[in-house]
C-alpha cells in the first residue's frame, strides 16, 4: 500500500509537470498531423492514402512521445539532484523506475491513438483494425521506447547528451524498421541490424493490426517486443545500481 502511494504520486507528478503540459500536448497532437501532411504532399496522394500511412504515423508518434522525453526529464532531475529524493524513498528501484517510465508510457499510448482516432473519425472506415491486438502492440512499443529512454538517461549525465543520444538512436531506427522502406529493399548488410531493433517488430505488428499486412506472426512480434522491454529494463536497473549508487 505504501509503495503504491509512492508509485502513484511519482507518476502523477511527472504527468502534471512534464507530460500534460500544453507545449508537450500540442506537440503530441501536431507532430502526427504534420508528418501525415508531409507524406501526402510528397506522394501526391489523396486522403485515401492516409490508411497506408497510419502504421508509420502511429510508430513515430509513440517513439517521439516517449524516448527523448523520458531521457531528458530523468537527466534533468538527476542533474538538479531532485532525483536523489527518489533514490532515498523506501521503495524498490524496480517500482521507482516503473513509476518514472509510467507517465511516458501513458503519454506515448495516447499519442498512438491520436492519428488512428483522427483517421477513423474523418478519413476512412478502417475495417481491418484489430483494436485489442493494436492496443497490446502499442503498449509494448510505448514500454520499449520508454525503457530505451531510461537506458539513455542512465548512460549520460547532461541534458543535451540525452537529447543527442535519443536522436542518434531513434532516427536510424525509423529508417531501418521497415515502415518507410521495406526491409528486403535495404542493403543486405543493414538487414540484420533491422532485426536487432525493437521498432522493427513494433512496426510489423502495427501494420498487421491496422492494415492486416504483417510479415511476421503477431506472437513473434509481441514476444520480441516483450523481450526487448525486459532486456532494456534489466540493463537500465543494473546501470542505475552501478552508476547512480556508485
Amino acid at each position, binding site marked *: 500500500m505504501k509503495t503504491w*502511494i509512492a508509485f502513484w504520486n511519482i507518476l502523477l507528478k511527472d504527468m502534471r509537470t512534464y507530460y500534460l503540459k500544453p507545449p508537450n500536448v500540442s506537440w503530441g497532437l501536431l507532430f502526427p498531423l504534420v508528418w501525415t501532411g508531409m507524406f501526402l504532399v510528397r506522394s501526391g496522394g489523396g486522403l485515401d492514402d492516409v490508411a497506408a500511412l497510419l502504421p508509420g504515423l502511429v510508430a513515430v508518434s509513440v517513439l517521439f512521445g516517449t524516448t527523448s522525453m523520458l531521457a531528458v526529464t530523468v537527466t534533468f532531475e538527476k542533474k538538479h539532484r531532485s532525483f536523489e529524493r*527518489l533514490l*532515498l524513498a*523506501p521503495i524498490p528501484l524496480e517500482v521507482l523506475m516503473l513509476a518514472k517510465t509510467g507517465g511516458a508510457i501513458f503519454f506515448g499510448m495516447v499519442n498512438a491513438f491520436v492519428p488512428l482516432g483522427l483517421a477513423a473519425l474523418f478519413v476512412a472506415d478502417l475495417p481491418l483494425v484489430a483494436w485489442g491486438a493494436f492496443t497490446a502492440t502499442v503498449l509494448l512499443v510505448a514500454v520499449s521506447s520508454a525503457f530505451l529512454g531510461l537506458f539513455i538517461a542512465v548512460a549520460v549525465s547532461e541534458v543535451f547528451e540525452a537529447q543527442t543520444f535519443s536522436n542518434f538512436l531513434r532516427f536510424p531506427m525509423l529508417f531501418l524498421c521497415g515502415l518507410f522502406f521495406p526491409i528486403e529493399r535495404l542493403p543486405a548488410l543493414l538487414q540484420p541490424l533491422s532485426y536487432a531493433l525493437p521498432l522493427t517488430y513494433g512496426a510489423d505488428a502495427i501494420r498487421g493490426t491496422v492494415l492486416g499486412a504483417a510479415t511476421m506472426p503477431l506472437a513473434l512480434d509481441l514476444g520480441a517486443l516483450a523481450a526487448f522491454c525486459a532486456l532494456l529494463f534489466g540493463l537500465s536497473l543494473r546501470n542505475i545500481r552501478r552508476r547512480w*549508487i556508485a
Partner: protein
Amino acid sequence: MTHAIVVENLTKRFDSVTAVAGISLAVPQGALFGFLGPNGAGKTTTITMLTGLARPDTGTIRIDGLDCTTRPRAAQDRIGVVPDESNLYPELTGFENLCFCAALYGIDRTERRARARELLDAFGLTGAGDRRFGGYSKGMKRRLTVAAGIIHRPPILFLDEPTSGIDVASARQLRQMIATLRGKGTTVFLTTHHIEEAERLCDRVAFIVAGRVVREDTVDALLEPVRDRHALLVACAGLDAATAAALPRAFPGLEFPLLEPDRMRVEAHTPIPVAPLVRHLDERGVRVLEARRARPTLEDVFIRVTGLEAGALGADKGNGNSGGKGGNA
C-alpha cells in the same frame, strides 16, 4: 548501548582524491551527533554513503542494525535526509513539494496535507506555500528542504549543514526544532562548520579533517581540557611596550598570549585577579576600557586538536549565522 549508526573503516576515493580515509564511528540511539570539519573534509561524502546514495570503497555501515554495506538502500524507511543542496522540485509549490515528499514514504493524502501545512507553519512559510519552490529565496529553499526531510518523521535524521544560508532568527528556531526532535528520541547526525552550533546542540562531536576523524567524544569531555582554563579579554588604550613586557613578571601566575597596544588576552589555570590587574595598568597610565571573561569554547578545542586555524572553519561566519557570538561576558 544500542547504536543507530555504526561505521567501520569507511573509505571513499574519487580518482586521485581520497575523500574519506578510514572513518569509524558509533552514534548511540537518540543522540545528537555533530560531524565537524573544514570544507572538503569529507562530511558530505560520508553522509551520501550512510544514506545509500553512494557505495563505500571499503568498510562497513550498519544503520539501525541493518547491514547497508552490500545493500545501500536497506534502511531507507528509517532515515530522513536534508542534503547540502536544496534540491526540491522547482516547478512545484512549497505545499506540493512537501506533500510529494510525504507520499514517497507512503503517507496517505489527508495525513500528508495536514503535516505539510503544519510544517509550512513551523518554518514560517505558510504565506509562501502556494508559490513555486523555484521562486523561493535561498534561505526559504533551505527551510523547505529541512521541512521535507522530516515530514515522514524518521527515527534517524541526517542534516548536512541545515542552517547554512538561513537568517539568525530562523537558524535559532531551526536549532530549537532539532533539539525538540532529539528530545522525542530522533537520532540526529548533523554536519556543520559552525562550531558554536555544534557546541550548543550536540551530545557527541567528531572532528573530521582530510577524510579522517581526528577526535570523537562527548562535548563535555572535549571541553574538559579547556574547562579549567580561565581567560580574560581586556580592551585598553595607551599600553606601551615597556609596560606590556613587564606584565608577565608582575603577574607570574598569568599568561598573556595576546598583548597589543589596545587589547590583551590573559589566561590562567586559576580565576584571574581582575582588580589588581586593572589597578596595575591604571597606575601605569593605561586606560582599561573593558574587561570581560572569555568562556573556553569548542572552537578552542578544535584548534588545539586539529592544529587548524579557526578561519579554516569560518565559511559560515560571514552571514550573521553566529548569532550571539562573544556574548559571554
